[in-house]
């Protein structure tokens, strides 16, 4: 954390913005004001399309905006004030903001935090993120909860009924999340390495190949802090690519889109399993592992997007409060063990709110995965020890799974 900027960001004020609408594919329309980018690169009034989803975290908007898993989604923040702590240079979770659109109730008038460098709205504009503010986000959230996440658009308020009808048509013509293959669009194009040295750890204890399906920067950071040198590969890297250097383990990251479209990653995961190299997956990586094992995946009605989600470790009964961002889930039997081509598998973790599968553990191979985010950012650090479990697994691959 930087302590070198004792003075505050100069106070700037958000000017009254122009009228905008959020329209959903079922026709429900919310009126408010534009927030963030208002025109595209060519100076045309900006509109944006995506899957409208709500996120319930009260902190961490900067991490949320830069989480690649939100690619293709219009994110609705349920927290009433957004932007209070401005934007700093330390907290982004990737190189850019990925949300398709951003909906808030009350944007902060000024940022107030010793690390703040600029305002959120300036950053949204700089990154071309179209957003809107001033709407009843609770009513919107309730709508999405009852009807499910759905396609929508943020656009300048249409002048008339014809404009509205046209906008609705454009929404209906836009792609949905089912069948969306988004990981390659957010992934790194070239492999790169995160070394423990950059986190103050001199010794490289282990080496991991990470498949970047939309990886957050905190993830390699948490591994590097444990002496793991992480080589991050593009989403489409093959199993052979991942195993080429004989790593101690392979990591499957989080990421956006429908896991059913990601056959390349599923195949890579199967290759890793066959090699008996220790494997750890999170979020999208959990779904990839699930599919690699032969389970299906399905779309949740409105998903889990928040940092207060209770997950129970079925072995210990302990509950962790965890960070979630997933719209899909693995379809596996909650109880008992399932025989798969890779041996026996059990559901290791379950969401207490709705009994969704939150983790898989292989009993005959050194592989496990969780549906949530042990790297947090944003969110509580309760599940951070899963990285220790991964280390343990790499050091004792004979122990199998998340032992």
């Amino acid at each position: 954390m930087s302590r070198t900027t004792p003075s505050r960001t100069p106070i700037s004020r958000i000017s009254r913005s122009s009228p905008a609408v959020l329209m959903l594919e079922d026709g429900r329309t919310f009126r408010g004001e534009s927030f963030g980018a208002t025109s595209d690169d060519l100076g045309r009034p900006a509109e944006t399309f995506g899957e409208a989803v709500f996120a319930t975290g009260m902190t961490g908007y900067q991490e949320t905006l830069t989480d690649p898993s939100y690619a293709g989604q219009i994110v609705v923040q349920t927290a009433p004030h957004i932007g209070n702590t401005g934007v700093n240079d330390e907290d982004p979770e990737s190189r850019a903001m990925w949300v398709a659109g951003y909906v808030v109730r009350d944007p902060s008038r000024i940022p107030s935090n010793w690390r703040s460098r600029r305002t959120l709205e300036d950053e949204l504009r700089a990154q071309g993120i179209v957003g809107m503010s001033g709407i009843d986000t609770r009513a919107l959230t309730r709508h999405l909860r009852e009807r499910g996440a759905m396609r929508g658009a943020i656009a300048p308020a249409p002048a008339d009924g014809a404009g509205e009808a046209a906008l609705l048509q454009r929404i209906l013509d836009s792609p949905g999340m089912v069948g969306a293959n988004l990981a390659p669009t957010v992934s790194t194009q070239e492999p790169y390495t995160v070394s423990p040295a950059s986190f103050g750890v001199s010794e490289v204890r282990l080496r991991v190949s990470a498949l970047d399906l939309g990886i957050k920067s905190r993830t390699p950071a948490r591994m590097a802090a444990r002496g793991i040198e992480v080589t991050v590969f593009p989403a489409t890297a093959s199993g052979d690519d991942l195993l080429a250097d004989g790593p101690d383990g392979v990591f499957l990251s989080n990421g956006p889109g429908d896991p059913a479209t990601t056959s390349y990653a599923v195949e890579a995961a199967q290759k890793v399993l066959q090699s008996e190299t220790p494997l750890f997956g999170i979020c999208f990586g959990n779904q990839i592992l699930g599919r690699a094992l032969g389970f299906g995946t399905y779309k949740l009605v409105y998903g889990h997007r928040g940092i207060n989600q209770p997950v129970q470790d079925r072995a210990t009964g302990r509950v962790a409060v965890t960070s979630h961002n997933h719209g899909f889930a693995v379809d596996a039997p909650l109880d008992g063990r399932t025989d798969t081509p890779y041996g026996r598998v059990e559901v290791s973790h379950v969401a207490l709110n709705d009994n969704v599968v939150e983790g898989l553990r292989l009993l005959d191979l050194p592989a496990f995965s969780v549906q949530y985010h042990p790297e947090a950012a944003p969110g509580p650090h309760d599940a951070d020890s899963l990285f220790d479990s991964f280390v343990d697994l790499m050091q004792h691959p004979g122990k199998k799974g998340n032992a």
Partner: protein
Amino acid sequence: MPRRDDIESVLVIGSGPIIIGQASEFDYSGTQACRVLRDEGLRVILVNSNPATIMTDPEIADATYIEPITVDVVRRVIELEQPDALLATLGGQTALNTAMALHDAGILDKYGVRLLGADIAAIKKGEDREVFKSLVDALPPELGAESARSAVCNTLDECFAAADELGYPMVVRPSYTLGGRGGGFAYDADDLRQIAGSGLAASPYSQVLLEESILGWKEFELELMRDRLDNVVVVCSIENVDAMGVHTGDSVTVAPAMTLTDREYQRMRDVAIAIMRAVGVDAGGCNIQFAVEPTTGRLIVIEMNPRVSRSSALASKATGFPIAKISAKLALGYTLDEIANDITRSTPAAFEPTLDYVVVKVPRFAFEKFPGADTRLTTTMKSVGEAMAIGGNFAEALQKAMRSLESGSAGFWTKPDRTLPHADLDPLEAVAIPHDGRLYNVERALRAGYTVEQVYEASGIDPWFVDQVLGILELRREVEQVVADDGIDSAKSLAILAHAKRQGFSDLQLSKVLEVAEDVLRHLRQAAGIRPVYKTVDTCAAEFAAFTPYHYSSYGEETEVEPREKPAVIVLGSGPNRIGQGIEFDYACCHAAFALSDAGFETIMVNCNPETVSTDYDTSDRLYFEPLTVEDVLEVVAAEQAAGPLVGVIVQLGGQTPLGLAARLKAAGVPVVGTSPEAIHLAEDRGEFGRVLASAGLLAPKHGTARSSDEASAIATGIGYPVLVRPSYVLGGRGMEIVYDEGSLRAYVERATDASPEHPILIDRFLDDAVEVDVDALFDGEQLYLAGVMEHIEEAGIHSGDSACALPPITLGRSDIARIREATEGIARGVGVRGLLNVQFALQSDVLYVIEANPRASRTVPFVAKATGVALAKAAARVMLGATIDELRAELLLPDGDGARMPLHSHVAVKEAVLPFNRFLGVDTVLGPEMKSTGEVMGIDAGFGVAYAKSQAAAYGALPTKGRVFVSVANRDKRAMVFPVKRLVDLGFEVLATDGTAEMLDRNGVRATVVPKYSEGLAGNAVERILAGEIDLVINTPFGSSGNSGPRVDGYEIRSACVAKEVPCVTTVQGASAAVQGIEAVIRGDLDVRSLQHWHRELAALRAETRADGSGPR
């Protein structure tokens, strides 16, 4: 996993009387806990001396001991009841300290009583500052937790040595005291001597902690829960708007924290969890406070409370997560994942609530009651209550909270700037002083053109909050501009008004700004469809459906009020606790909800006080957490009328706050049930009431009503001095005084008109040496149920709320009571009461005077209910909705006969008031017509002496049974004092007296040692000897006029010394006689404990006998 099965009975210790720093939030938490324990099939034994609580209702526990919370008394309860376990983490610091003392005395071990929730080791780690600090310092360094540099000192010399290390200013914190009592900031050596000196005295272990100054840092709190499997959740984060240096209980606070990034918040969370584990709170809640350096983010752990606290109550109301209830379940061995979230039903309590709204709490002070008190806010808590508001954004929540306070101003611009505190100072200087209502001066400073940065620099209030106030000001200017340009009913004006409503502007604020009538503005707004909607507090930001209708208003698209079919009744609560309007009124409101729910109504509560049982979402069918203003109440009424049939609104149970709304609600077409607003007016308007009395053949002290200074002096001259003067329509004797001459009268009128401009001043003849009697009664239009007759122990002239009283009356004859009954019935009929009526009488030279009548719930309703074993408030609610007294008797809700005559041999209950003078050092402790007490206790026993002794032990510490008594009384009291002092000598006391008093005693055969007066400045004077701890009891009645002359100052110094050393100090003749009776009873060894259920059973049996004798009162 099921709960532990090794316990069958649990002793719960409550928090005792309401005092500053420990208010009704512990009734809320204790009530929740008792309910949980009983639902689990456990036998619950409760000790709490405070009768005005829901938790001491006989149906809440199996055995309820309304007894002093002392080690000796609790030991007796343990002996009698043999509980398996003790739950002490839900009764505030009082319960925790008592549990520690019971442990230290070996009592818990001796009787095999296990401590639930937090064990002794954990309590000590959390509460002992030195142990706690070393525990924080021992946490893994990567967590980045520090404690402030500090030194623990047991003597003043140690303090000065430490000061060389730490430098000034520094914080002084005594160990094991409530609300930081005895603490403060020391800016130099003199400050240190004074503050650390009183801190050492205040700490039961004579220990203070000196700390480096973190004045001006940001302050945060986290509320956590942990179960026996080590699952931990953070229920709520709270940020203080006032920076470090103001006690969190006196700060404006906001939830969730507004100015932390996720990294900073998670680090705070990690530290908090590590601390909770290190302290070892195994199964329950705790609260941890942090300071953050604004320019660097350096994080310092300030303190933790290993128990449910005031902040937990706030956090529970702010999030919908019932901390006390879940704490009780965790203490029984359940884990968080085994406990359902009541609100969503489908999800477990093992999660962290997330808010999609903002909660603001503002403290309520009572400095006007304590002239001379230091009004600067410090680390010693001084507020007497708080209001909480929920809004869609910070501005809305803040403005709702400000108008919830009823502090004179109802939000920005509702009062002229000149009435603001420190109005004479430049606003930037004013904001530098932490004070009640500082945000008004923040707005004034911004309006004067100071920048956000300047105001931040001066006040330490984070720029984010200052800028929010600026946003409110800018919007006001925009509203003014648009309305001026386009006219108030233009589309553009309506649009900006809608925007202002979304930012929490009240109709009243807008009406002041735009200079139109509030009603006009409301009609305009409503006609334009600018109406609030009602959202739900659901713990989860709408992620899951909510099943508890816990609502708050906001200006959005969609309302969540569900339609209903059952007829509903709205109960208006009493708002923030304050002196004169406290928990007693909340008690009555809760009982109305319970009774009406049982009677088949849907009950709807409206209140804004987070410290109460009424704002528990379980108390009524629907809860609206809303300010109690005309605007906010009318909107709730409209929303509920749209939802289904609404029978009416109850305004008579919540004290003056809802009562004051009655006329305007009725005028707006709201059905007010029970006593009508017109009848209320009849009782409150002096002239009208005089006619009611005259036609009933009753006497009032000579009186008059004045609207000007000249009129007042003419009336007073006609009546004859001394006179009692007060503004009309007030509770708790606010602004009431006895004046002796015209000069003081005119000075009073100047001050009082400021206190209450809309209402005239009442002038009464002051009845010297009269016995005052309080009566609570129910009237159904035909029949009177006289619930109880209370005889005040202090004479008339002491506010009834501050006076001790006995039920049944101890000196009144049957014929007196018969006259009182008749008079009460005459008033009830004449006024047109439907429900409760409280009448105050004075009996002087056998003449019965009616002092006042209040057609509403009184402060004494819970006391009467408990003393007579009758659910009076429940019966009252039913009568208000049309039930007759006969019907209620048939339902057994009321007994046959009534409380006019308690059967022979029935018990005696004594109510004693608890005064906050130890918070306001330097304030005179003499009682008068202005109410000053914050709470009350009850002593109950077979006879008056023991009951009185118990009440004293519960309120102030036990009466002495031996030692030295110091006597100094006014001439008029000397004759009456001979007998009680003589009795004390017979009981073995040594008597010290000032020379005049000693001479008189000597002539009556009582030897007294003469002690110099303080004003004589001699060594060994009374004040010195009290401070030296040489005096065990003081009897001092005030004399001299209320100026600054010698004798008056002497008495003042004596009484202040008593407060400082906690020496019992009797200031009235009657009090002295009562004290002597109490001391005699204690010496005789009569002090034993009995449960309330026992007394009620005995009373029921006596009543049955009385009926069989045919000697009942009917």
